[in-house]
């Protein structure tokens, strides 16, 4: 799928340099595409400054991950932690190795059972086989969307003012207007949303299916009340709960990246599905 953008480059190379140039372009492009596909999880881990677990939560998380991944017959992901004010988790991987990233805030806010339900949800996503494609889409869409931050910094470094001054914010707003459209289109065209299936699978894999609904509700409410942005919209489809908000005019572009049902809808669906799964 990601070799499709290579076709025009290969045709141009073939037109300009003949058969050899075309073949070289196809080979070079294939190697680059494959490398990006292989490296995309590690690049996203670096993006979020994720690190391996240590401390008392480690044993709990490891034991639960190995138990539930064995139950759902998927490879056990490597748990990592990253700094974020939002209680969220997400999984990246490329069909061979998976990494489950949990925010520090999730460990602080969610109780033990709720945390287990969030981990189960992430394992359920792995079993839906949508993680690899969503990872690479997040890498590209996130890279495009982050160009607006580059524009903001360039505006600040060229003397337009500080971060909260009107001129750099206006330049960033315009830049976001230009980059968010292709980024959002990339997300909508290529990402695979399996939220509802993963929710149902995770709820049915747990002893008490209602815990997942509670965890989602708590995370959603906390994000709504306490988290003030700072997320790359190109990554929103990866997260367990959507952290994007559109409270101000400057956040309006986030509305183009909503691929998941609202938390209230998910909770309602899980509560209605409870008697069926029991």
């Amino acid at each position, binding site marked *: 799928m990601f070799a499709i953008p290579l076709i025009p480059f290969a045709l141009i190379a073939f037109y300009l340099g003949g058969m050899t140039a075309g073949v070289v372009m196809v080979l070079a492009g294939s190697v680059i595409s494959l490398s990006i596909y292989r490296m995309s999880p590690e690049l996203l881990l670096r993006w979020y400054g994720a690190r391996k677990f240590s401390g008392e939560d480690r044993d709990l998380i490891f034991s639960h991950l190995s138990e539930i991944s064995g139950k759902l017959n998927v490879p056990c992901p490597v748990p990592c932690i990253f700094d974020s004010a939002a209680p969220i988790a997400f999984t990246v991987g490329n069909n061979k190795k998976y990494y489950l990233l949990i925010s520090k805030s999730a460990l602080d806010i969610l109780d033990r059972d709720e945390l287990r339900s969030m981990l189960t949800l992430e394992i359920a996503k792995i079993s839906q086989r949508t993680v690899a494609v969503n990872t690479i889409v997040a890498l590209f869409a996130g890279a495009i969307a982050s160009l607006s931050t580059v524009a903001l910094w360039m505006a600040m470094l060229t003397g337009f003012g500080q971060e909260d001054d009107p001129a750099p914010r206006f330049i960033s707003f315009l830049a976001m207007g230009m980059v968010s459209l292709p980024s959002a289109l990339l997300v909508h065209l290529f990402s695979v949303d399996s939220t509802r299936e993963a929710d149902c699978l995770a709820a049915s894999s747990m002893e008490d299916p209602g815990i997942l609904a509670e965890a989602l509700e708590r995370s959603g409410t906390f994000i709504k009340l306490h988290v003030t942005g700072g997320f790359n919209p190109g990554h929103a489809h990866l997260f367990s709960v959507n952290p994007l908000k559109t409270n101000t005019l400057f956040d309006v572009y986030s509305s183009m990246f909503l*691929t998941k049902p609202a938390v209230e809808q998910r909770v309602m669906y899980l509560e209605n599905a409870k008697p069926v799964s029991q």
Partner: protein
Amino acid sequence: MFSLITEIYNALKQWQKALLFSFISYAMLLFLIIVAITFILRDFNFLVVAGLTFVYMAGLVVFTLIARRLFSKRLVEEQD
């Protein structure tokens, strides 16, 4: 007139507002391109600018319409 514009703007959904601002952002980029071309040519060449504007705006309108159609089908709208 102004109240009508405000009314229309307020009636738009969030993603439609985002699409509108994206359209304006790309149109402003066209203005910068025209300024750059005028500086490079050291003259305002109406034919070049009109041709460029026609091609650019036609492409932009088509792109925006495709995006609008895709968003109206696939976007999950925010709950107020």
